[in-house]
């Protein structure tokens, strides 16, 4: 189906970006900056318009799907094709055999992603109005945020991997700009550059993966998701990539694409940038580094599920990496004292869950966790931002405490987020995490399952630790700061309430235990169903849903209980201001050390060699040529004196020589 409205989705926030960018530049000279009301109006209006448009498109698409299904059922067909709105816009570039079109496609996967990207995006824009109200650069901030949203929409909406790559780079740029937003502090700039550099490595993998993929499918197939999926669903093609050189090529291609995903989604080995990215303002952490951008890796896996499903090695690697990241980051989260760092490691851990789900072939469960995680992690970050805002910039949870009464709205919202992330029954995280655990048990085997379950326990521990130290334990705030503690303005409170409700109830979009509530999975089935069916295999292990769910709840309760016990026994040392102990540092910065050892130092040594040894050699060669020319020039320069007599003499001598030459026959 064609739709001519898709281009509006990214263009609306782009207009917001341009307007606020112009306002920011125009107000740069004035002492107070541009009008806050006007900036706020633009900042919220355009994302909201984008949200309403995507909601309308999504509902219309659902309606049309239902009517087409009914028609097909009447005619006796079984409809398995995905229905989507398409809008091919123009030919992007053509080089040799490659002919890439620029266009958008809106199907149920895109729709679900867009709904929470624009919806939560709008709420976080609203929140930023309050959070950044006292900041001189609020117009610049809002324009970057809108630009991010536009790029994220392009990423999700692109009809082919290259259009997605465009948005992929765009969100990376905005992430860089926003991490380094407070650029007066140089450590923020370092964090921004680090995020950018680490992502470059991943993006290189993404691009190389695309080249290999293009090699596999050949120039005859258009480079769009639709065509690529169709190619990989063809049994003849699947057989051809099942063995031989093509199988190697496919493994390389998917592994490289996955490397791109690990960069963007902060998985092992490219995860070190995300904790540092917390240097950005908290709404940025909530929108970009928790809810939307970092989940684009999972989105890409689901989008290209047919490709990944064709390579069992890659799927195994993805599942293993996901589980390892989830466990590692959960432990690292427990070791932090900075409220935003805890949430950052928690994000990495939850992303690990999503990759684990995708790796065992449950792409829909992964996307479902993306969806629920967007709510509860956004509310946790926004709540943390509200706490930081109330305490005037304090981020160390050892200097908080007793805030449940002082900040009731923030506390209730974060409580909802905590309820969801620990996986207590009914919360959003409960449904998605249990779904993942179930799929891991069925398709992934016991090792992955127990790793995931252990991660769930540790998640309970560190999240409860955060709640205890911030809200429930006695106050350890400085008296002066405590005096000024205040609940945030309504622009910050409203998103907290909405997202808090979302993290309690978003999970009911796909509650397998309740009949009829499978809206989410049903919608994703046409897109990832084929890949999942091909992976599921013939003999499917059956497990008792109730048993697995109670194990999950047990893990959550166990984690919470352990956390309270640890608090009682004084392990949390909430009054100390010790820096991290050595083992904790080694665990936390393990991958930083690995990067330093395997990436940064070899490059430094190589560049030292190039700089100090190879460069002088090359320069010497260049200078040799220069000296040679100079010497020859010096030889001839003496002839070029502007002395009248010399010139005359030389010209006469020349004339004589010419004469002698002409007379040579006579002289003989």
């Amino acid at each position, binding site marked *: 189906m064609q739709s001519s409205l898709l281009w509006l989705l990214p263009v609306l926030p782009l207009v917001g970006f341009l307007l606020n960018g112009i306002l920011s530049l125009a107000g740069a000279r004035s002492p107070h900056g541009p009008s806050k009301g006007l900036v706020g109006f633009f900042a919220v209006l355009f994302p909201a318009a984008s949200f309403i448009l995507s909601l309308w498109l999504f509902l219309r698409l659902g309606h049309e799907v239902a009517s087409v299904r009914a028609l097909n059922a009447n005619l006796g067909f079984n409809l398995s094709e995905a229905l989507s709105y398409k809008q091919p816009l123009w030919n992007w570039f053509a080089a040799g055999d490659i002919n890439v079109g620029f266009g958008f496609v809106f199907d149920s996967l895109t729709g679900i992603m867009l709904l929470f990207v624009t919806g939560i995006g709008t709420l976080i824009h609203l929140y930023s109005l309050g959070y950044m109200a006292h900041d001189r650069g609020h117009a610049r901030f809002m324009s970057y945020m809108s630009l991010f949203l536009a790029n994220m929409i392009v990423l999700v909406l692109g009809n082919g991997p290259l259009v997605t790559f465009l948005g992929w780079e765009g969100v990376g740029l905005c992430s860089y700009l926003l991490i380094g937003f407070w650029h007066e502090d140089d450590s923020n700039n370092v964090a921004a550059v680090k995020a950018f550099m680490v992502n470059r490595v991943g993006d290189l993998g993404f691009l190389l993966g695309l080249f290999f993929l293009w090699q596999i499918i050949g120039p005859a197939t258009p480079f769009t998701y639709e065509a690529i999926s169709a190619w990989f669903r063809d049994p003849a093609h699947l057989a051809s990539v099942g063995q031989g050189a093509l199988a190697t090529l496919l493994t390389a291609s998917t592994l490289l694409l996955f490397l791109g995903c690990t960069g963007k989604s902060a998985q092992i080995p490219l995860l070190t940038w995300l904790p540092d990215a917390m240097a950005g303002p908290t709404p940025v952490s909530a929108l970009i580094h928790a809810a939307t951008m970092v989940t684009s890796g999972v989105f890409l896996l689901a989008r290209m599920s047919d490709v990944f499903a064709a390579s069992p090695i890659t799927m195994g690697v993805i599942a293993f990496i996901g589980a390892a990241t989830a466990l590692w980051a959960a432990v690292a989260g427990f070791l932090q004292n900075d409220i935003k760092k805890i949430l950052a490691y928690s994000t990495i851990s939850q992303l690990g869950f999503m990759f684990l789900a995708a790796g065992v072939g449950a792409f829909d469960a992964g996307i479902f966790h993306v969806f629920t995680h967007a709510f509860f992690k956004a509310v946790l970050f926004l709540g943390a931002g509200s706490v930081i805002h109330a305490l005037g910039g304090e981020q160390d949870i050892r200097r908080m405490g007793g805030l449940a009464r002082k900040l009731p709205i923030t506390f209730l919202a974060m409580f909802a987020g905590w309820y969801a992330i620990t996986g207590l029954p009914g919360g959003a995280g409960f449904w998605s995490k249990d779904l993942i655990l179930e799929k891991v048990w069925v398709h992934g085997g016991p090792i992955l399952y127990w790793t995931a379950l252990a991660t769930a326990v540790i998640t309970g521990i560190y999240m409860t630790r955060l709640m205890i130290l911030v809200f429930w334990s006695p106050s350890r705030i400085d008296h002066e700061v405590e005096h000024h503690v205040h609940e945030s303005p309504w622009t910050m409170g409203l998103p907290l309430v909405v997202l808090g409700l979302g993290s309690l109830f978003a999970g009911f979009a796909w509650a397998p235990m309740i009949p009829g509530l499978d809206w989410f999975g049903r919608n994703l089935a046409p897109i990832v169903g084929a890949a999942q069916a091909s992976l599921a295999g013939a003999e499917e292990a059956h497990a008792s849903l109730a048993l697995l769910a109670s194990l999950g709840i047990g893990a959550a309760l166990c984690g919470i209980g352990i956390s309270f016990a640890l608090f009682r026994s004084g392990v949390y040392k909430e009054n100390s201001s010790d820096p991290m102990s050595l083992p904790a540092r080694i665990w936390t910065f393990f991958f930083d050390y690995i990067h330093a050892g395997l990436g940064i130092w070899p490059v430094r040594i190589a560049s030292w060699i190039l700089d100090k040894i190879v460069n002088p050699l090359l320069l010497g060669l260049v200078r040799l040529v220069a000296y040679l020319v100079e010497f020859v020039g010096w030889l001839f320069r003496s002839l070029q*004196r*502007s*002395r*009248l*007599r010399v010139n*005359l*003499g030389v010209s*006469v001598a020349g004339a004589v020589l010419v004469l002698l030459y002409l007379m040579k026959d006579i002289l003989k």
Partner: protein
Amino acid sequence: MEISIVHLQILAAILFALGMAAAVGRRNIFFVLMGVELMLNAVNLSFLSWSRTFVGRGAMEGQVAPLFTIAIAATEACIGLAMVLMIFRNRESLDSDDFSRMKE
């Protein structure tokens, strides 16, 4: 001893060599100009003696060419002296080596 044509040619060559020696060797710009004149007239002499050698067609041309040379030598002397005067006013010098940079 009768003066033969060969003697005239030898005289012309000696005069030319003297003129060239003056033009190249002397630094005073007037001597340079005089050397040039001397060389021109040495060539004239050579032409005339050739006109004696070739009786007939060549005789006339050998007579006419020096007339042109004299006319051109006159204009050359005119312009040359004017330039020397102008340069002398600017530089207070008649040394040709001082005139190595004309645009100054």
